[in-house]
């Protein structure tokens, strides 16, 4: 197997990873790894082909300017067979990448909550649908319901509309009262107000239904209509796509595998973004979902910390606090309502990989027991989709992660040696 060693390795080339790599590269030799074909992460995905992502341009040119080793289409799937080594799957085979310091910037994924019909084709995450459009999916004249919760819904609706889609409505579960409280707090973030105003003009005329959620999706072979509920009652809307998710949830599998302390689903870090493992730093969404501004600040702090640049670390600290406060306001404004927990019916599939229904899970009292008997969470997604749902529905915590963190080929498994033999 191919071995490379690097002074600093950054996993994830989203805003946090790019900022970390650019900052660390001032004094150290850097390798940046991402499983997508190009850097950018979620928000700047496909920027290489299409322009327009605000702020992204500057960071892209900085990234191009550093002398880093870039491993794209490369996924960290586990640990190598010596200390401080990652096992990386590449299109042409496996590779071991050795590091002195490691910066984890693995981002977040969308939070999906099961409801009747959520497994139908053309029901996707809003960010997922947007990612597909960024990568060539055409949505002209498609009728799309954008639903769930969080500020991403409006951003995605605006984006889809710009690409010719007809937005049926945007469905936000948070009540109007909570949203207006959140709106008032934006006063402290003038940039966000400008952003919100710009966004509003792009979705002008689109129905924004607050205190409303999707109860069911139906159709033959793909979604054709959705049933919406609010305290006023029910209604049906026809659509070609349903884009639905309930905010984001941090990707903490790799930090967890590396032994970093995790608290409440987030990686614990100090004011230098250092985890409980002294040579491992973490930045961006894994330390708590906070958006692109927080991700960029944390990335720069982590990069400066490994570069030994204490001045930059200290000077960025007030910004970090400011965006952490913003993240807390977001959490509060878009807190999930209890009714969402009752959406999954006994026969609703919770684990999509293994087709395990809620009633089969409810026969057990822990994730471990349910996994053993139903294979829930043991399919290819390894609990990435159903784990968060099960946590929300049944209160079970996912077990600690065992290698590999992503399913890999048999040939690749052979490279594991002693690390996975327990």
């Amino acid at each position: 197997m191919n071995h490379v060693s690097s002074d600093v390795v950054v996993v994830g080339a989203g805003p946090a990873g790019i900022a970390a790599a650019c900052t660390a590269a001032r004094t150290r030799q850097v390798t940046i790894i991402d499983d997508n074909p190009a850097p950018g992460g979620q928000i700047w995905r496909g920027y290489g082909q299409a322009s327009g992502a605000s702020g992204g341009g500057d960071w892209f040119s900085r990234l191009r300017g550093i002398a880093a080793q870039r491993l794209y289409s490369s996924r960290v799937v586990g640990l190598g067979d010596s200390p401080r080594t990652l096992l990386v799957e590449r299109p042409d085979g496996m590779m071991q990448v050795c590091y002195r310091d490691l910066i984890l910037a693995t981002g977040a994924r969308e939070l999906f909550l099961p409801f009747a019909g959520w497994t139908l084709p053309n029901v996707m995450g809003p960010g997922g649908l947007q990612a597909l459009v960024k990568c060539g999916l055409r949505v002209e004249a498609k009728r799309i319901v954008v639903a769930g919760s969080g500020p991403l819904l409006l951003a995605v609706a605006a984006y889809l509309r710009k690409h010719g889609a007809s937005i049926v409505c945007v469905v936000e579960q948070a009540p109007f009262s909570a949203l207006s409280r959140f709106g008032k707090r934006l006063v402290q973030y003038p940039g966000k107000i400008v952003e919100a105003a710009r966004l509003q003009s792009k979705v002008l005329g689109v129905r924004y239904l607050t205190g409303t959620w999707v109860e069911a999706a139906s159709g033959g072979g793909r979604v054709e209509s959705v049933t919406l509920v609010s305290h006023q009652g029910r209604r049906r809307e026809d659509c070609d796509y349903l884009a639905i998710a309930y905010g984001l949830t941090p990707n903490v599998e790799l930090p967890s595998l590396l032994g970093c302390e995790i608290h409440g689903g987030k990686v614990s870090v100090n004011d230098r973004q250092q985890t409980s493992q002294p040579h491992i730093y973490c930045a961006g969404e894994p330390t708590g979902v906070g958006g692109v501004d927080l991700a960029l600040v944390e990335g720069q702090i982590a990069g400066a910390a490994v570069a030994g640049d204490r001045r930059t670390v200290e000077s960025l600290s007030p910004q970090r606090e400011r965006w952490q406060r913003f993240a807390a306001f977001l959490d509060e404004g878009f807190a999930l309502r209890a009714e969402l927990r009752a959406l999954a019916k006994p026969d609703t599939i919770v684990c999509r990989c293994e087709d395990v229904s809620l009633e089969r899970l409810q026969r057990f009292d822990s994730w471990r027991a349910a996994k053993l008997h139903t294979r829930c969470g043991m399919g290819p997604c390894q609990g990435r989709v159903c784990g968060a749902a099960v946590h929300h529905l049944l209160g079970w915590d996912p077990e600690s992660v065992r290698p590999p963190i992503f399913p890999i080929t048999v040939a690749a498994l052979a490279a594991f040696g002693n690390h996975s033999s327990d």
Partner: protein
Amino acid sequence: MGKSVVRLTIDGRETAAAQGSTVAAALLNAGLTELRQSVNGEPRGPLCGMGICFECRVSIDGRAHQKSCQVLCADGMVVTTE
């Protein structure tokens, strides 16, 4: 999105896709919404669009279970749904 076009074969039919498109986008653009069947035989299509859920997997150039949302279309590529 770049202007140039690549040609690939999807379930035996030749299709054009914009350079830089992923295979998942090309499949949906070609009108295929069901990319695979679940364990119980239900139709499934992409969910996450970002390599997490594995619902978009197809065979690409003879390699089974490839996540079509993370693979770019290329000239001469042969894709079959599972």
